[in-house]
């Protein structure tokens, strides 16, 4: 964590693909500092271990295994396996999480965590006063059910209902990162639970790049339909209570997207504005190619592009008066465009 309260996740990208020495957290004069090629950039801290990490569930499981966290948020992951990976080549090409999930499936570890067990951990965690301000729930996409995605939706509804029993208010600070549900499914999610905000990650704001990058999402739902469902979600949950995650940078080069940063900027900005006008904001993470993803040898765009597009997303958020409270620096962080919302 930085002095301003910003939290940063880091990824070990492996020795092979380093173009230069990485940032290093070091101990200098008894202080933790971030260094860049031996130059001290800033003092930093690690975020603290939650108290519930020392506890076990009633069935003897270590609670820290069941729910992770950010500095102020529970990270509830129902399952680490994404069923878009069931079809060879169906997973998103930049995604290291899906690849890990595939390994877990091979080991027979594709299980949804029991909602009652999750709630037991949450109840213990919330005893630490002032520690948690939000509950994030996510589960790899589950395509099965009476309708496509019904099994995923039903699990989330069951889980959210259980969690809701902890609180005295009808709704509680929470975010679900789910697959893009249809109108009927979104209405059920909103009406049957206390969920406050909804996210469905479109990953990249260009149809051609989406089709190449996320073949599973493209095949089962499609780019235009995904955008339509985000807009419907904003109608149901309210403007500024729906966003979509982007893996910023995947829209350029690598045989996936635009040839130039200028072309990408123009096209992506236009699509982001269409969503913002409908009440949907974006959470733009910075793409860091991973050694275990399909696109492991990809090159990401320039820092200048990342800054330019982040500022553009913030300009659009302000133009359309959208809040990103549920996905800001404190609750999630790691998307620079929503960090900028701290200023206005």
């Amino acid at each position: 964590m930085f002095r301003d309260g910003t939290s940063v996740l880091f990824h070990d990208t492996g020795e092979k693909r380093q173009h230069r020495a990485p940032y290093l957290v070091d101990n200098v004069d008894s202080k933790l500092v971030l260094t860049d090629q031996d130059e001290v950039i800033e003092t930093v801290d690690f975020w603290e271990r939650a108290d519930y990490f020392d506890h076990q569930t009633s069935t003897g499981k270590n609670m820290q295994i069941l729910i992770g966290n950010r500095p102020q948020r529970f990270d509830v992951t129902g399952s680490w396996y994404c069923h878009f990976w069931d079809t060879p080549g169906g997973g998103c090409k930049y995604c290291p999480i899906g690849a890990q999930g595939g390994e877990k499936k091979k080991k027979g570890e594709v299980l949804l965590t029991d909602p009652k067990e999750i709630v037991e951990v949450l109840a213990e965690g919330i005893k630490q006063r002032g520690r948690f301000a939000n509950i994030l729930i996510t589960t790899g996409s589950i395509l099965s059910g009476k309708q496509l995605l019904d099994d995923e939706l039903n699990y989330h509804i069951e889980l959210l209902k259980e969690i809701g029993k902890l609180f005295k208010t009808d709704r509680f600070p929470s975010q679900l990162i789910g697959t893009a549900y249809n109108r009927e499914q979104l209405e059920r999610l909103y009406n049957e639970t206390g969920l406050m905000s909804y996210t469905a990650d479109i990953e990249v704001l260009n149809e051609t790049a989406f089709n190449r990058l996320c073949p599973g999402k493209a095949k089962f739902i499609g780019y235009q339909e995904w955008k339509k469902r985000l807009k419907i979600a904003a109608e149901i949950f309210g403007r500024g209570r729906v966003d979509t995650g982007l893996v910023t940078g995947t829209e350029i080069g690598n045989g996936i997207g635009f040839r130039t940063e200028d072309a990408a900027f123009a096209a992506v900005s236009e699509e982001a504005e269409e969503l913002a006008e409908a009440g949907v904001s974006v959470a733009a993470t910075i793409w860091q190619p991973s050694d275990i993803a399909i696109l492991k040898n990809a090159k990401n765009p320039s820092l200048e592009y990342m800054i330019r597009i982040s500022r553009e997303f913030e300009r659009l958020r302000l133009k359309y008066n959208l809040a990103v409270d549920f996905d800001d620096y404190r609750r999630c962080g790691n998307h620079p465009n929503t960090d900028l919302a701290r200023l206005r």
Partner: protein
Amino acid sequence: MGAIIDERLKQIINDKNSLKVIASQNVDGELHVVYKQSLHVIDEDLLEFYEIIESSQNNKNMVNSIWYEVPVAINILSEDRKSFEIKGVAHKAHVAGKYFEEKYVQLTDKGYYDLSTVWQIKVIEVNEKTFKVKEQEALEQHPSYRHLDQLLKD
């Protein structure tokens, strides 16, 4: 260099009966002034206050201060009308961790609805602005700034 905040000023800042205001700027340079009675001394060059409301203008302006090193100005008025202007810059925002949680528990037990941030301000400069002191300085340093009728013989 000696302490920027000496023992006398520390007592005044920490006195709950003193009035404490912070003036800050947003990212467009617009000014904002707010009372912050929770302001207190942490160290000879470090002040701290509690920002209860995450969405407040002051909270946004403190981010502007810590990101871009934009100064903030503070004025303390003691119960006996002594006034001090303190200039500083936001130094740290505690938004999580045991230190934050300790303050959170103290404040919510007192009835506050939540706590956003424990802000710490690095002090750059302190100047006394007590009216009587400034009046004496003006008389000594700017004798021309007088209306003549005040100087007439009785």
